[in-house]
């Protein structure tokens, strides 16, 4: 063979598909277990939270980000480094208020929904990618930042883009410690 098996492009794709497919199976299973969309959303958020708390350590170990001085720097790191590293996409960032603690990540592409054409029947309030919100929230909390993270718009629900809103809740501590996603 000219190169090691695991470097062949089709295997790389399978590896990427593994996460997306497993996530789809998880959402399907939760839809079977819970009748209400809100319950599924909450469960996904909770699971994401658990993942985010561990993922942030993995992220810090892999990336060489330095100290952030503002919320908008943190958001930029999330969008340009973390999303790129784990999902291969770079959402664009907007700041939604003058006190600069409310931001949005706009996802043009979303690998999680690669195999999803539309929400299942009767599941119009399902936030399919709610795991992402939980992950971001859990990761931020591990670096001592409380935030509300929700989907503001969702292509699967008919909106034109998918938008994640992140609102930082507390005044950022002046103490010197690393805080990244």
């Amino acid at each position, binding site marked *: 063979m000219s190169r090691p*098996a*695991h470097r062949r492009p089709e295997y790389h794709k399978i590896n990427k598909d593994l996460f997306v497919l*497993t996530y789809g*199976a998880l959402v399907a*299973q939760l839809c079977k*277990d819970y009748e209400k969309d809100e319950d599924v959303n909450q469960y996904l958020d909770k699971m994401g939270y*658990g993942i985010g708390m*561990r993922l942030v350590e993995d992220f810090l170990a892999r990336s060489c980000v330095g100290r952030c001085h503002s919320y908008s720097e943190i958001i930029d790191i999330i969008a340009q480094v973390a999303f790129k590293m784990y999902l291969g996409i770079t959402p664009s960032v907007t700041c939604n208020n003058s006190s600069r603690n409310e931001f949005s990540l706009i996802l043009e592409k979303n690998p999680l929904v690669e195999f999803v054409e539309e929400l299942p029947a009767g599941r119009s309030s399902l936030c399919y990618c709610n*795991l992402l919100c939980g992950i971001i929230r859990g990761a931020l909390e591990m670096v001592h930042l409380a935030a509300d993270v929700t989907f503001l718009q969702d292509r699967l629900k008919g909106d034109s883009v998918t938008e994640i809103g992140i609102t930082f809740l507390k005044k950022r501590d002046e103490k010197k410690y690393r805080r990244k996603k």
Partner: protein
Amino acid sequence: MADTVLFEFLHTEMVAELWAHDPDPGPGVSAGLRGEETGATKGQKMSLSVLEGMGFRVGQALGERLPRETLAFREELDVLKFLCKDLWVAVFQKQMDSLRTNHQGTYVLQDNSFPLLLPMASGLQYLEEAPKFLAFTCGLLRGALYTLGIESVVTASVAALPVCKFQVVIPKS
């Protein structure tokens, strides 16, 4: 791109959450899956089958995405070899360490450092917990086999982490 670590974290979270699932959920939930619990073992079996079922779905889908030239197998053993090499490499970045068979439909696939068990422990610690972490992968194997035209029963056993054995039994028709 979507790192292997994302899958590992998601898998760990799924095992933790599906295991802790309330065994007595109330009227809103489909009865087929949960039903009445008569004891801890019944709850355990149901959670394992849920994880296995999810693995099956994913295995089926992955099986459909495998490179085309691999789909012309001459015999059963070729399929198993393919799982040990190509599928395992694609999913876990390593090959299966050994494959044994009795040439009568039973295959034992051994992985000496199974990636989903590696971060947990090495040796006998957490031996009781290990089956939960294997259920999804058993389903994955079963699903991939199914897409390749083979119905099977896949179970796993662990004698000491992180070595595990997957037993594939293909009933003769």
